[in-house]
């Protein structure tokens, strides 16, 4: 046991050094000797580490779908997310509006290394239906968000490459590319801007398999919850090919509620309303 102490001490020194450097250069600090791929991965890991420990959350989502002509339609749903440290997070989407899908629910058990498990609850038939999760590129509720845009961005789902730092509004952002590991993804790459203050995603550009700029997501109205977790209150996705857009407005964020595993099961799904 005693042999471990010197190593601990040097780790401690490194940590202190990191903190001091952080104070000078802002977070994060990445060594010059790392490759762009390593820096990219490090940013993704740091982003995930920052968000770790939120436990669970509930929130309300209003989706406003706008077509090229400016016609709007709205969706309202409730979202519940359970953090799973050793695997992908579990999430539950319950639809309130439009009324014909009222009470319909989608349960997702996310996985880091394999396809997610998904079940759909159809209240009219009281039927819990296992559905395939390979529909990554499919539209979520007819919106400009694909299923893969809605799933939690686990580090393992992409490979990364750091590009540069540049100003973004009043902040400075790191810009990196990430490449989906899943071959079912409709994207060849995504370019993501994250501010250096708190690694909040500010903008994501999506490029399709032919490398055409397909969509842009802009995240605004960040609020801090529990002094630690930043969440955007508005997410705007613009599709450059169709001219359509979708705005997701998040309200009623609640962290560390009494949700647990039991609320994210097939039997729990039958109780949804």
């Amino acid at each position, binding site marked *: 046991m005693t042999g471990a102490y010197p190593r601990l001490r040097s780790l401690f020194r490194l940590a202190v050094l990191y903190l001091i450097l952080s104070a000078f250069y802002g977070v994060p600090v990445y060594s010059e000797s790392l490759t762009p791929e390593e820096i990219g991965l490090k940013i993704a890991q740091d982003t995930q580490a920052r968000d770790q420990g939120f436990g669970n959350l509930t929130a309300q989502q209003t989706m406003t*779908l706008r*077509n090229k002509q400016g016609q709007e*339609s*709205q969706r309202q749903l409730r979202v519940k997310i359970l953090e799973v440290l050793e695997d992908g997070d579990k999430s539950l989407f319950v639809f309130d*509006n*439009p*009324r*014909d*899908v*009222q009470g319909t629910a989608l349960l997702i058990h996310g996985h880091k290394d*394999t*396809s997610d*498990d998904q079940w759909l609850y159809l209240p009219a*038939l*009281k*039927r819990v239906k*296992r*559905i*395939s999760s*390979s*529909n990554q*590129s*499919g*539209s979520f509720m*007819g919106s400009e968000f694909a299923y893969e845009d809605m799933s939690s961005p686990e580090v393992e789902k992409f490979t990364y490459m750091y590009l540069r730092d540049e100003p973004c509004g009043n902040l400075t952002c790191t810009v990196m590319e990430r490449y989906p590991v899943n071959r*079912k993804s*409709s994207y060849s790459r995504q370019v993501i801007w994250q501010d250096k203050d708190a690694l909040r995603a500010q903008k994501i550009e999506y490029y399709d398999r032919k490398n055409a700029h397909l969509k842009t997501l802009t995240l605004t109205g960040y609020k801090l919850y529990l002094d630690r977790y930043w969440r955007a209150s508005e997410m705007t996705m613009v599709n450059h090919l169709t001219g359509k857009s979708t705005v997701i407005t998040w309200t009623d964020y609640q962290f560390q509620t009494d949700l647990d*595993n*039991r609320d994210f*099961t*097939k*039997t729990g799904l039958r*109780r949804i*309303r």
Partner: protein
Amino acid sequence: MLRSPLQVLTRAAWFLTMALGAQICAGSEIDHEVFGQVRFENRWYPENAAYPGQPDLASGIVLEPEFYFESVEGWSFTLIPFLRHDSADPDRSHADLREAYFLLLGEIGDGEWELRLGVDRVFWGVVESHHLVDIINQTDLIEHPDEEVELGQLMAHATWSGNFGAAELFILPHHRERTYPGRKGRLRSSLVVDDDHPSYESGAKEWHMDFAVRYSQNFGPFDIGVSFFDGTSRDPLLQPQVSEQRNGELVLVPHYEQIRQFGIDAQLTTDEWLFKLEAIHRADSQNLRYVEEDYAAFVVGAEYTFYSILGTAADFGVLGEWCYDERGKDATNIFDDDLLIGIRVAFNDTQNTEIFSSLLRDRDYSTSAFVIEFNRRISDQWSANLELFSLFNVEKKDTQFDPIRRDSFLEFRLNYNF
């Protein structure tokens, strides 16, 4: 037409609703929600009726509200009455209590228990062609010949679930009779089914205590359920009898036997493929020739989906199922040896436009049933549905299809959701 046990239940539910209402007014902490659906329907049968007095056009209105109450202590009560008025067939104008149950739940270790007391609907199964394993609820056949709609069932339903899966116990103290079209209704047999005076094998008649158990779990991409049922069959044998209540008319009297049934339902979900299986073994039931015959039956199927076809948002699915019943032509249902092929198109647009179409073909007789359904949202509140149900190549020998050979129909439904 309300029957006495249902009347009792309706009254009980009414009483509970009033009691809950009173509590809410008294300021007790009970949350409540009201929502539901009103449907306006028109069904048109283009061919002339086989029997006198059957109209070609049936208009209907359906009211299905849902009342939900939840207390701060954690229990909830759900109430869903159902009311239909039909312009053509007085028997199709009917009321039902789809759901009226208390839900209680709690924790056991890592898992949980759940108790549902009252009238509820329970669905088991995975395939599309018909509900083979599903046995808890009676079919509200008069609603639609596809046997998808179910009547409420009185039950005590306990669930214990955890990492090991879910184990469920059902105690079913009351049996519901299947609903059949009346004399003026289309889609009826040549003899009218007298569903007001069924006969039962059990001396306790419809109050025989039935039991069922089920265990279900998923292992990665594999979902499986095994079930056992012991009690009154939901599928009646129709026996021709001279009816005293109907002045000596020859009618079909439903006879409900005591049966035992093992069931298994499973689905393997891979990327684009779904593989499905439902199988049962049923003991102590009679076949179409009124001879007692234990039997096995199964449905196997597969579904393949092409996602985002032709660069659009639409998904296109094709499915195939084979239904087999080892009794063959003596089977009491139409799925003795049938193939179903189907397509499903989900446009994934803002109107949630969907098309489902299937063709069912009997391998013994040439009888075929073709269905195409089109669904579309109109606004936040309104949605519409158009359906063609068509029978063709019906053989005279095919005694289950022959009486309804002229009853293909086109139906338009307009739904208001609130």
